[in-house]
């Protein structure tokens, strides 16, 4: 692993690692049991408050998914499966064991795809408002199609916290490039079928890792009842609704999320003892 000078737009603690041919941006912070923290459509930069909270008691590994932030987008990557296998390789390469995997929104989908493939290095899982199962059936849409909405509407519907207004043109080019890459990668992995892998539903029975599903009660992207249906597909999953919280749990309720994760982890340790 090699540290590199931090560019504008990247967070402190950012490293670059090579996994196979792919140069991966990987934020590492804190000391303790390892947490693989998987970001949503808005990139690792949006996770900062939650990273800081969890890093008090854990060692956080927060990569930018291939194509997001400063991570390469290999030409062969086009599905969340590709990311899932890639992160299983990353866990092997870093030789991480008893990992708590936590993914939010798009990152929750990535985590779910890892859990059904190989949970050998995973001890606990937290899925925060994950995508991954069918988001619509024929003309009935359950998850908001963000691609059909203007950017302002998507921002407002993503969180209950007021959205700060800013003029994009005034942002530094490096920051804009990250935003553009995040949007492009979200499109690549999530355009169609929209934010799902129709096979995933039929594979979730394979999850043996104790799993906590968190959902914002005010989620206006993927509503609460969609979340309950999702959690019901995962054996023994614990479902917790967070009041006054939207789709971006890490923006609206990072403290509540961190408390839930800690308490879930403690209960799991107690259960194992």
């Amino acid at each position: 692993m090699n540290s590199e000078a931090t560019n504008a737009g990247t967070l402190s603690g950012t490293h670059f690692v090579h996994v196979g041919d792919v140069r991966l941006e990987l934020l590492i912070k804190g000391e303790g049991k390892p947490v693989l923290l998987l970001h949503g459509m808005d990139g690792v930069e949006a996770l900062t408050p939650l990273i800081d909270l969890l890093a008090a008691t854990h060692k956080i590994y927060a990569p930018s998914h291939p194509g997001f932030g400063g991570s390469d987008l290999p030409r062969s990557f086009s599905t969340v499966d590709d990311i899932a296998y890639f992160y299983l390789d990353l866990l092997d390469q870093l030789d991480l064991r008893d990992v708590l995997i936590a993914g939010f929104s798009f990152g929750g989908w990535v985590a779910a795809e890892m859990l059904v493939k190989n949970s050998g290095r995973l001890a606990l899982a937290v899925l925060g408002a994950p995508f991954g199962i069918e988001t619509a059936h024929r003309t009935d849409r359950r998850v908001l199609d963000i691609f059909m909405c203007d950017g302002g509407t998507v921002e407002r519907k993503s969180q209950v916290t007021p959205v700060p207004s800013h003029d994009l043109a005034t942002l530094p080019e490096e920051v804009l490039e990250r935003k553009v890459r995040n949007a492009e990668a979200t499109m690549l992995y999530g355009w169609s079928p929209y934010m799902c892998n129709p096979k995933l539903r039929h594979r979730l029975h394979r999850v043996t890792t104790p799993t906590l599903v968190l959902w914002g009660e005010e989620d206006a992207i993927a509503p609460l009842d969609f979340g309950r249906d999702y959690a019901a597909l995962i054996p023994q999953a614990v479902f917790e609704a967070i009041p006054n919280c939207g789709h971006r749990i890490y923006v609206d309720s990072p403290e509540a999320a961190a408390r839930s994760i800690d308490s879930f982890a403690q209960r799991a340790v107690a259960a194992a003892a």
Partner: protein
Amino acid sequence: MKVWQFSEQAYHPAFEVPGPMRITLPQHHCDPVEAGRLINRYLDEYVLADELGYNIMINEHHAAATCMSTSCMTTLAILARQTKRARLLALGIPIGNRANPVRVAEEIAMADVISNGRLEVGLVKGAAYEVFMSNRQPVRFMDRYWEAHDLILEALSNTGDNFSWDGEFFNYRAVGLWPRPIQQPMPPIWMTASSAGSAAQQAKLGYVCATFLSGAVARSVFASYRKTYQETHGRPASDDRLGYLGLVSVANDRETAFQRAEQMKAYFTTAARLDPQFRNPAGFASVKDNVRILKAGPNAVRPRLRDGSPLPSNPTIDQYIDAGLMFVGTPDEVFEQISRFHAEVGGFGNLLMMGQAGTLGHAETVENLTLFSREVMPRLAELSVDTPDIRYEAFA
């Protein structure tokens, strides 16, 4: 100079409906009987254009009141039989959006044989918002486009055994065209460009390069094409490799021409009615271009007036003329406007002429096409000398 009549074949009664004209406009606003009447009217105008000595250009859009031709090849299949002389140009077929490129090749071949080899084929990237109807992946869209291009050309030009195709985007066990096209190895291929980079790529391939309503930008597009064509092929590009699309309103008096131009202007005002999220889906443009677009703001891509300022949001007819998007007036004035523009952009051999646009009615369109064909078209022959190859040989 070849002149090509073109109409977007709008369902213009819907222009009265407030809001966007594409993607989300509910179809209950379409009276299908009225739609059929209008499409037949536009086809009549194309048949007239054939009789008047025009060539014919057809396009397509989807889920749009501004254009009822939802398939170039469906429209051209009708005209292949109903016209006699005109070259028939599909500009174009959005092959990155098409599910089935072999079907595209089949339709090209079928229209080519029905028209006895009069088909010309534009293979285009298409407008960004079309992916919302085709549902094709915007990221790596051009990789898909080029594979479709390679497959279509292979199918059209194949003189050996039928073949199989296993690419990144398309898989076929058996490709064979029955019928295959009359024009061999294939009908003339066109593409569209609005940047010097795209034009250079098309010059390498020797395709006809057309630029639409781009005003002064046409100069850099054509210059890039000519430069790369010379470098690649070792001879100058003839003018017939280049095309420009603009609106034309001609009448015996200036006032009538301007009145009609006002009706045609509805083309511009309705084409722009599109919700912002559909204009530039992520991944359709490169990361570099998208960063540049965000930095530059919304005025960066507006056409320019002669003084370099951006065309205002509701331009006058005079401003459209100044920007090179419309040619309006008496036959003399229209000829002068076209020849001045032609000289400014370095010459082109194909005028893609919107002789009908917006709400312009049938009688006015007939008069427009008839007068232009009699009074302007013959004089355009003076503008383009299509023999630079011969001049080059003479010097060599």
